[in-house]
């Protein structure tokens, strides 16, 4: 057992959490390569995979097996299946990047055949791509791949929605599923799938944010004119409530209810801003599930969402300035109240005191 593991076990024991004396079934982890080696191997393998795929394309073309959109689709599906196998049986950064390149190439081939089949650009033309992304998201457990397919799933699904209500339902469902996955991390961990939760959650949330922001600026091609007035953004509020409830597990009932009210108020305040609620879910997930990077990304998205307020033409800059000043004073007053309330709670006020 490593020195760190012994120290961590001691801290858990000091907190009254006893670890069962069970024979570990996990194989001893090999020490990971330094980050720069992993990066180098990953870049090298990705570029190498592109060359191998070009080779494959040349070979198939010479055999007349890759000369139409339909054959591109068939080859693409074959490559996707191959990547599933690669991820399942190969290990290492280089193998993962190789499999990623194969998967991307396969998805591109499939997309070519779908585009050829549905030339009208109708909503239905995106459904096969959504289906493929959903399958790959379920079957391939690699963190980076799951993040990318989750994001693609959110974006392609949004592109397939023509009615604002359908779009709102799609995003609300995705954010809710993401929040539910993160809330059930312990359940997944007990089944040996704990490491898959983070990428699954982050991919879906990042995809929703990536889809909402261009939608707000009416950048999606072929979509109906939509903006904050047309879309019921508040359908995403249940996800915020779910993640808040899960984050306060073990706390007294009064605390949980207070947290729910705070989460509801915070979500509702900016419900019409692009990416606001998914970013809040991401921020809370980052803080409560020990992912500081998520909280940083969420903070940047929240700042961007607020900056969009600058361009709203409904009210003047002076009115906006006054509202923001009032909100700022209210936040500072609330901060003072929270500090006073926290100081009156019994128990150690810092980790150092607890030790």
């Amino acid at each position, binding site marked *: 057992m490593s020195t760190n593991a012994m120290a961590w076990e001691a801290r858990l024991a000091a907190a009254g959490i006893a670890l069962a004396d069970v024979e570990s079934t996990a194989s001893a982890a090999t020490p990971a390569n330094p980050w720069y080696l992993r990066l180098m191997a990953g870049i090298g393998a990705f570029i190498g995979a592109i060359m191998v795929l*070009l080779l494959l394309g040349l070979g198939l073309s010479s055999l007349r097996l890759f000369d139409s959109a339909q054959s591109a689709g068939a080859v693409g599906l074959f490559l996707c299946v191959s990547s599933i196998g690669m991820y399942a049986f190969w290990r290492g950064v280089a193998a993962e990047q190789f499999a990623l390149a194969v998967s991307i190439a396969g998805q591109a081939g499939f997309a070519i055949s779908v585009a050829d089949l549905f030339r009208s650009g109708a909503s239905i033309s995106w459904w096969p791509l959504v289906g493929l992304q959903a399958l790959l998201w379920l079957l391939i457990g690699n963190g980076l791949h799951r993040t990318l397919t989750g994001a693609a799933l959110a974006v392609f699904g949004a592109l397939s929605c023509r009615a604002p209500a359908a779009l709102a339902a799609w995003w609300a469902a995705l954010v809710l599923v993401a929040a539910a996955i993160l809330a059930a991390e312990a359940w997944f*961990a007990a089944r040996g799938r704990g490491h898959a939760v983070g990428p699954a959650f982050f991919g879906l949330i990042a995809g929703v944010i990536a889809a909402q922001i261009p939608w707000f600026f009416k950048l999606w091609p072929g979509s109906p004119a939509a903006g904050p007035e047309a879309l019921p953004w508040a359908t995403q509020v249940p996800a915020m409530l779910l993640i808040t409830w899960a984050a306060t597990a073990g706390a007294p009932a009064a605390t949980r209810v207070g947290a729910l009210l705070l989460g509801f108020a915070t979500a509702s305040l900016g419900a019409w801003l692009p990416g606001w609620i998914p970013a809040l879910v991401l921020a809370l997930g980052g803080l409560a599930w020990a992912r500081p990077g998520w909280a940083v990304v969420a903070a940047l998205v929240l700042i961007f969402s607020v900056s969009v307020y600058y361009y709203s033409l409904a009210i003047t*800059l*002076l009115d906006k300035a006054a509202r923001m000043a009032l909100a*700022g004073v209210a936040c500072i007053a609330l901060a003072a109240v929270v500090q006073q309330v926290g100081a009156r709670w019994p128990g150690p006020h810092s980790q150092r005191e607890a030790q």
Partner: protein
Amino acid sequence: MSQSSLSGYSERRTWLLDQVANGRLGAGDLAGARVALGLVPGRHGWMRVIGATLLATGIALLAAAAIFAVAFNWDRLGHFSRFAILEGLLVASVLGAWWRGAGSVAGESLMIAAVLLTGALLALFGQTYQTGADPYSLFVVWAVLILPWCLHARWPAAWLIWLVVANVGLALFCHGMGGDAFFWRLFGRHEAWFAAAIALNGLLVVAFELMGERLDLGGRRIVPRVALLAVLLAATAILLPALSYRPFWARDWQGGWQVLLAGAAFALTLWWTYLGKRDLPLLAATTLAGIGIGFAVFMRIIGPANEFGVLLISAAYWIGLVSAAVVWLRGLAATKEST
């Protein structure tokens, strides 16, 4: 390893999930275990996080409100009012940084704000008084003005901003300078900026490596490493086309000087990262760049890439070189760890 350092988050989190998977830790204890290991705040920690977030949000909203109010009235403000606002903010930032001191987060943040406000003030000056000066002069003057602050602050973030400003000024200078200057007659206009970037950043690397301790930039050498990375990128940008699809021997004689300068810079970078400082991350970057250049030369020699045999050999060459480099670097890393 510090128990509360951000770099340990991933290891502690992974270890906890493994304990749940192994059955040593109950799924219901996972949340409490995260608190015990300092991964997430406890009850009081949450109050501190919420309080700090509300305070930071309140301050940001007040600052944004001030900006919005100024923006609303900007057209009505006279020249002196505009300058007074910016200069007032600049003076307040400098005084605040001096009061809080260079070692505190608040002091360093205010110093960064002062550095950025200097650029904004110069931009306002250029916008208000249309002197017809070249754009590069703003960045050059900006870099000169903030240099004393960077020397005093001794904070890598300030130096990195200075590095960006200096390089942007250099790029604009190269872009706008006429073709009769001696430098361009020597090095040619096509890749002139890259050659100038090699010279500037190379000098900075030498200066920072020699004076690093006196500047108290910390043991991580972030600033000289970023400058060296800039040298590497510029050298690669010259060598890659000059040795492959746009060969220097088919161009004017100035191409030869560029290749000579870039080649020398590349060789010095390799020597410094391998034999000098044994900086493995930068050595990995240098190795990958070298493999890329070598691959481009190889492709030029063996012929067009749309032939099956050529592609097969190229793929094997690339994969073989990268694999060999990874094995070599892994050995160096293991040797460095054991010493």
